[in-house]
């Protein structure tokens, strides 16, 4: 009996080590497949409330964001080292773009059907950084936009109306590289939150987008 125990001890030790020391691929996964998944996300209303609702496609849930001249975000606090988990992936789809005219005003141009924020919160607003991925209507993919909110906010256009919008589109972004590209400097060490937003308050029109499967993950081993 004792001999048999001693024989399986190394296997148990290896299994224990794997469980304790193994680095998970994902830091967080937000699949929205549970009824309570949205409860852990907080609302921040900027100009009237956007409806963020959990919808179902069979057993799979997703978030539907519908804005009727409104602008509000849904955010989730996360705290992790960006160098440990530099990738963020998610799926999204734009159902309706805000009605931005050809000669849209600055406020109108500030409306995006879908935005994804990575927030590097610090001890003050001026030292916090905000990287936004936006699905614009008319802007060219790859454009880096500033924001009237300040120099610490950068937006990267990663989709526009010419992108295929009949189906869900999956994004995998290297936030570390994107930050360097947008800000031209090394990113802060820690990410503080992620957020999604749909806004159409500048145009006072209707916009709708869908979000699903947000994942914060490691770089794949080569």
């Amino acid at each position, binding site marked *: 009996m004792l001999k048999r125990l001693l024989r399986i001890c190394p296997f148990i030790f290896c299994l224990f080590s794997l469980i304790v020391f193994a680095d998970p691929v994902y830091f967080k996964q937000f699949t929205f497949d549970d009824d309570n998944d949205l409860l852990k996300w907080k609302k921040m209303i*900027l100009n009237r409330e956007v409806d963020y609702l959990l919808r179902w496609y069979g057993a799979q849930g997703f978030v539907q964001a519908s804005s009727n001249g409104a602008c509000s975000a849904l*955010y989730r606090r996360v705290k992790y080292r960006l160098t440990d988990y530099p990738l963020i992936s998610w799926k999204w789809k734009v159902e309706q773009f805000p009605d931005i005219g050809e000669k849209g005003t600055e406020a109108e141009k500030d409306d995006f059907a879908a935005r994804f924020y990575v927030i590097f*919160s610090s001890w*003050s*607003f001026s030292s*916090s950084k*905000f990287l936004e991925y936006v699905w614009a209507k008319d802007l060219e993919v790859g454009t880096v936009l500033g*924001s009237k*909110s300040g120099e*610490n906010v950068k937006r990267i256009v990663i989709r526009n109306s010419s992108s295929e919008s009949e189906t869900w589109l999956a994004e995998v972004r290297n936030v570390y590289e994107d930050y360097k590209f947008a800000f031209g400097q090394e990113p802060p060490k820690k990410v503080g939150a992620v957020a999604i937003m749909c806004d159409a308050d500048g145009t006072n029109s209707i916009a709708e987008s869908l979000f699903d499967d947000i994942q914060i993950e490691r770089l794949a081993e080569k």
Partner: protein
Amino acid sequence: MAKRKRRRYFVNNTFQYRYIAVVIVPLIILMAGLYYIMYYSMFTHMLIPEAVTATLLPAMKKVNFVLLATLPVTLFLIIRAALVDSNRVVGPVSRLERELDMILAGDRSVRLNIRAKDDLKPIVDRMNRVLDTISK
């Protein structure tokens, strides 16, 4: 005992400097800390940059303006309170030293004087009772 008005709030004494510093420095640190906690908790609650710039920063600008406008009055009141409070301890000391010197010089009729609100009053009262007992 006749009520005597305090004439000098500031007696040039390192103890009083130290006392005032002990009152003012923690108070300023506490106020700055509370201000920061208030700002930071609102900032972390809002988090989205558009929300912060549209609501929090204008509000903080107003708060800063009010704080700056009232700062001279606030500082005056704090320093005045610190001076009055410290003077209740430090103020009578030099006079007590003078009166005790007179007693030591042989004048047994001298009694120690102190204002009703001074912090050393209970001790001075007892010392006067001791002097009364010795004089009998």
